[in-house]
């Protein structure tokens, strides 16, 4: 059940009505938890059992850890929980990848094996809820948060339906106080939540699906030759498609949660207004970036053991970001490129030019466009079906003479115009953080913005493709 389906509209209306009709706070949370399992079962009922099992185990593990003061025991319990979570993720998401890679490696050494199709179905959203579970047990181990006294609250933290399948990746420390606080109708920002939901839908349904996806599909179709201009157009369009798709989903999730009185962290803050890749990663998929920082980069040592070691840690962290996104070498290359760009940026800033200090508005805008171009170069591997395809499109991006005619001019014009609008709005309004400024708007601009977004959704009937990030 995706946010852009009519099924979800019916589901949301029913759950919203039921939630506010129930008086007891505990009963409301039980109701939300049951609704969340129903939401998840809409994909595959079997996987509800998986999520219940891992939720139960992690909750028990945190209690066992809390009960004993003996460090070796606590470490064993933590290791078991991590092993079970990563084992489950590894089996469902990476088993085929590792098997294929092993077959390829053996082939290099002259040993031939038929590739085995394991036929494993990927539980939707497993990468998201696994990271949430891991952050909880690790934070309990580190004694950064109190153990969850309520299995109900912990279950809701893992499975609350707005964030369940594609984030934002929550932290128990932020969510737990919200579970303790009963919600009353006036406190719920229903109107604003619904508005955010519609803005997010407009990004997904109108821009991602109808404007950018058709261009991307033509450029990245198997077996086609792409020239210089269309390679750039395809790469930039994919960056914008990924943004509108995922930021749109995140905004929907934040809006829906708000309708139930819960506040989720921001996941995107005008990333294409960033000057440099390092800044972009503080504004793009923020909940994943901060997770990787806290549970991978810093435990590896961060920059504490010198610059060189720090940059190596950064590279490792970004390779993992790539692998988290998908079980394919194209994603690993994408993650690696992000890391390389940031390391290079650190060197340039340190020894050549600290462009982060440019104060001129036009200069910053030009740097933001350059950053968008860098991001789009890496994005080629995110979208490519194979390393070969990624390589040939990347080569075409640096061969100005190469020509192709895959995208009709009308599609290109609309994509370029709206893409420029998205990037331009990030540059111009990137300083507006969160959505609190919306509350200060008078009624008229609020109504206009909602009407525009709603009209974009209503007048964009299409074929309902899945959200890109659901595959992760």
């Amino acid at each position, binding site marked *: 059940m995706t946010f852009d389906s009519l*099924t979800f509209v*019916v589901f949301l209306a029913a759950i919203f009505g039921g939630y506010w009709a129930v008086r007891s706070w505990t009963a409301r949370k039980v109701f939300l938890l049951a609704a969340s399992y129903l939401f998840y079962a809409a994909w595959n009922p079997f996987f509800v059992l998986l999520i219940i099992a891992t939720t139960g185990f992690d909750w028990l593990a945190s209690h066992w850890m809390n009960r004993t003061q003996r460090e070796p025991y606590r470490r064993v319990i933590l290791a078991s929980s991590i092993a079970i979570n990563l084992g489950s993720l590894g089996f469902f998401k990476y088993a085929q990848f590792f098997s294929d890679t092993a077959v390829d490696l053996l082939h290099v050494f002259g040993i031939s094996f038929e590739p085995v199709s394991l036929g494993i179905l990927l539980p939707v959203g497993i990468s998201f809820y696994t990271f949430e579970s891991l952050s909880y047990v690790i934070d309990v181990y580190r004694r950064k948060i109190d153990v969850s006294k309520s299995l109900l609250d912990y279950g809701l933290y893992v499975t609350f339906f707005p964030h369940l399948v594609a984030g934002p990746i929550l932290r128990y420390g932020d969510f737990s106080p919200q579970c303790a606080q009963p919600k009353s109708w006036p406190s719920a920002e229903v*109107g604003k939540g619904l508005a955010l939901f519609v803005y997010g839908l407009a990004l997904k349904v109108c821009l991602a699906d*109808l404007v950018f996806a058709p261009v991307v599909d033509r450029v990245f179709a198997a077996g086609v030759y792409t020239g210089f201009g269309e390679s750039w157009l395809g790469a930039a369009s994919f960056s914008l498609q990924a943004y509108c798709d995922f930021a749109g989903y995140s905004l929907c999730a934040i809006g829906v949660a708000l309708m139930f009185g819960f506040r989720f962290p921001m996941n995107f803050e005008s990333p294409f207004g960033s000057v440099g890749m390092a800044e972009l990663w503080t504004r793009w998929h923020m909940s994943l970036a901060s997770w990787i920082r806290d549970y991978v980069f810093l435990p590896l040592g961060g920059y504490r053991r010198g610059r060189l070691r720090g940059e190596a840690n950064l590279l490792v962290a970004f390779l993992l970001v790539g692998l988290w996104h998908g079980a394919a070498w194209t994603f690993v290359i994408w993650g690696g490129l992000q890391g390389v760009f940031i390391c290079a940026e650190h060197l340039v800033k340190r020894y050549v030019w600290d462009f982060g200090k440019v104060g001129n508005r036009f200069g910053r805008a030009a740097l933001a466009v350059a950053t968008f171009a860098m991001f789009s170069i890496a994005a080629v591997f995110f979208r490519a079906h194979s390393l070969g395809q990624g390589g040939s499109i990347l080569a075409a991006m640096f061969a100005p003479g190469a020509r192709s005619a895959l995208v009709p001019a009308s599609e290109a*014009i609309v994509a370029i115009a709206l893409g420029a609008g998205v990037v331009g709005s990030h540059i111009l309004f990137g300083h507006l953080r969160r959505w609190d400024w919306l509350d200060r708007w008078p009624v008229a601009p609020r*109504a206009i913005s909602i009407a525009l977004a709603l009209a974009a959704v*209503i007048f964009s*009937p*299409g074929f309902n493709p899945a959200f890109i990030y659901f595959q992760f």
Partner: protein
Amino acid sequence: MNRQWLHAWIAALLVCALLAVGYEWLLRQRGYLITVQDDADLWSMQLDRVRNSSRAVALLGASRIAFGVDPALLSQQLGGRPVAMLAINGRYPLGALRALADDDSFIGLAIVGVDARGMQRRHWDMQQSYFDHYRHRWTISRWVHRKLLTALQEHLVFVRSAFAITNIIERWIAGKGPPMNDYVVVRADRVGFIDYHHPDLPAIRASRVADLVRYYREEPPTDAATWLRDLDTVSTWVEKIQNRGGRVVFFREPAADESLALDEAHFPRDRYWDAYARRSPATMIDFRDVPAMTQFVLPDTSHIDGTDVPRFTIALANLLKSRKLVD
């Protein structure tokens, strides 16, 4: 809800309602018809209907079946058997037969509308993506979504992708004008009714014939020996279905004039269709052998007019009964 938000929402909903009413009125003024937009979800709903029923009838094929047989009427004619329209416009159906053969829950009657051209191995996978969709993406939530979307499309013109605002803008930039006025009206059970009282009928007919001429120029026919050998594999699918109690009928639907002449020139009946009929475990019916099937006018040489669909459906039901393919 906060009062300011409430006012903003009421104003926005009013504006959108007015826009929707205006757009719908404009489209109807321009003669656009209400029609359901076919897709893999609508097709999957049909597949659900024929699983686990020995009385089920699955209509496989391409446009000639999709725009020729009314499943509801056929069901009525066959005593209430569940009938599913699984034909897909523009895609030959043998891959669908293979998928039904591999699906043990299918134990009914498969009527495969196909000609010798469509039985060539190179066309076998054309419908596979629909089965892949059913296997990997068809869920209860998609079912609900599709039900609601169909209900909207049965009442409103603008809820089809052709009328998406971005599509209109792109067409305007490209100088293509408004979207083409559909001359096929599709119902929720996927049967399509073609309106050949269209002013451009000569152009439609000429275009269809030109397409067929180009097809035969670009894709020369498989030689008869290879074609027959390939169909031995198809026979194993037929046997698989028939061994568990089902039946398979290959039905060569009506064609006329240039289309029939071109098909016959490239796939002579005696060397292809009849040759396979002699060795096939399936029942094979050529429309030319059924007098009732030769009575139809085919305005574009390949499809009947929508008004003839009931008559054609009844003729098909009578044919199935006369051949004792149904009780």
